[in-house]
């Protein structure tokens, strides 16, 4: 069995967001890049499954769509424990374009389980994983918070508005995963870091096609009015303000 984990290269979550070129582009200057947190959890779970599978899962691959700038996070994914990687060498224009590129690159790869984070912390598209399934015409399960494998049986727990459901699915499939899928991401160890340099990271040319959307520009939220302070001995006044001024209770 082979697992593929889709990786997005995103700015560290504590990055101060700024824009350049007349607010048309994100300011990449000085930004620390990380594996998208949900993707990192997906990779962690994939590794846990592989380790517990007694050899049934033979390989974990990672894929990203991005320019050379995305290589350090791919190398990190390899250091954490992925066996090999693919980078589709093009700008990640929009979710449709990225999903199309991934689908093209992996359609003959023989992956049984494809994992993608439910969204990326940069453009919050929440779409790539689900779109890959549609391009490949394979089943998908969204908002998955648990993946278990026993024998050859895979069971998935998904969150829906109002509860959770345990699912089974035909292979191959895409699981779009969210928080809870793994407790916390792994820190690569020295051995992993050393081995990462020797693991294959294929660079493939993008397929023909175009994005369906594009960014016209960005804006930062308006500065919030200063916080109105209420004395700690006057909690009643706070409740009154919420009732009469903010009108939220």
């Amino acid at each position, binding site marked *: 069995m082979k697992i593929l984990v889709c990786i997005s290269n995103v700015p560290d979550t504590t990055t101060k967001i700024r824009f350049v070129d007349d607010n048309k582009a994100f300011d990449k200057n000085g930004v620390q890049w990380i594996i998208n947190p949900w993707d990192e959890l997906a990779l962690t779970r994939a590794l846990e499954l592989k380790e517990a599978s007694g050899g049934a899962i033979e390989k974990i691959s990672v894929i990203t769509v991005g320019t050379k700038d995305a290589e350090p996070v791919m*190398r990190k994914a390899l250091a954490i424990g992925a066996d090999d990687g693919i980078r589709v060498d093009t700008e990640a224009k929009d979710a449709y374009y990225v999903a199309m590129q991934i689908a093209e690159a992996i359609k003959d790869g023989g992956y049984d389980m494809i994992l993608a984070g439910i969204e990326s912390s940069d453009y919050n598209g929440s779409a790539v994983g689900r779109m890959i399934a549609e391009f490949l015409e394979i089943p998908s399960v969204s908002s998955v918070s648990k993946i278990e494998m026993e024998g050859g049986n895979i069971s998935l727990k998904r969150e829906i508005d109002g509860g959770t459901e345990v699912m089974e699915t035909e292979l191959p499939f895409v699981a779009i995963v969210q928080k809870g899928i793994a407790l*916390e991401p792994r*820190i*690569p160890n*020295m*051995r992993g*870091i*050393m081995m990462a340099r020797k693991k294959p990271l294929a660079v493939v040319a993008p397929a023909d096609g175009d994005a369906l959307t594009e960014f016209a520009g960005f804006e930062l939220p308006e500065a919030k009015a200063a916080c109105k302070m209420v004395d700690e001995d006057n909690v009643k006044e706070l409740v009154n303000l919420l009732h009469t001024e903010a009108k939220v209770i």
Partner: protein
Amino acid sequence: MNFEFTEEQLMIRDAARDFAQRELLGDVIERDATATFPTEHVKKLAELGFMGMMVDPKYDGGGMDTVSYILAMEEISKIDASVSVIMSVNNSLVCYGLQKYGNEAQKEKYLKPLARGEKIGAYLLSEPEAGSDATMQRTTAEDKGDHYILNGTKNWITSANSASTYLVMAQTHPEKRHHGINVFIVEKDSPGISLGPHEDKMGMRSSDTHSVMFTDVKVPKENRIGEDGFGFKFAMKALEAGRLGIAAQALGIASGALERAIQYSKERKAFGTEIANHQAIAFKIADMAVKVENARNLCLKAAWLKDNGKPFTTEGSMAKLYAADIAMEVTTEAVQIHGGYGYVKEYHVERLMREAKLTQIYEGTSEIQKIVISRGLLRD
């Protein structure tokens, strides 16, 4: 000239940073207050390979260069110098010395578990009356044919209680003065070894420091490292490498204090604006940043020399001297910037200041470093 780090070096730095944030930050204040040894933390550090990161993979080490080591030491020291001193002693004194001067059997038996971090190492040179002047070893190692008998007391031993493998310097031929000193691998549970009380230190309180008493401790001859009389040279060579670890630790303490000062000065308001907008604070930050950057460059330069097989004694001493001195200055300023908050434990900087002080004292005081540097320059 190339100031770029490699992808691996950056990955190691990030791994150390993640580890420190995730595993050390949460209880560092409590461990400092209660002087609790970071048993679990060191175990996790070992699992990541940080306890023997420069050891050849052939001996179960990480096979990383000294530059990576400096980066990792800086990140861990930013958060917790008690943990980084355990890491430093194990890596750059004990593992370094064993790998460089031990024989195959010694490496197989002692280096491997140390490199894997399953065991912790300690370096026993200082004595109650032989600190900076290490030639005056009073601990004796009497040659009994197939073994030695050790007697004496060692002082200020980092990880004395938690370590299992000791490297002990002891005098075999007093008439030859320091040429008579030997170095031995001694297992901590050998009969005749006893520990003094846990030292109640000003800083780095989570690392365990004790004196160690040897009473007729029998050490097999095969546990001597190198030729008869090699001990003093071994001690000095190990300290040369160890210095880089402590230099990087001092750097980390300083840069950790700087980061906290920057963050605090952007949040704290006084006279209607963030204190970072007051020039008195802004200039302090500028001065601190220049010092930290200088210390970092000295550390990396010395590490680069070592990695490239070039002499690094003078540069290593410069890095240790400068980083330790500025760590004291920068942490003091960080406390000042924090005002009253800086003086309470919750804000970390008072602890960093207490930790900084030790870097000027151990593994060669600042004064000793000046001797090393000046001798290097003035020798004919």
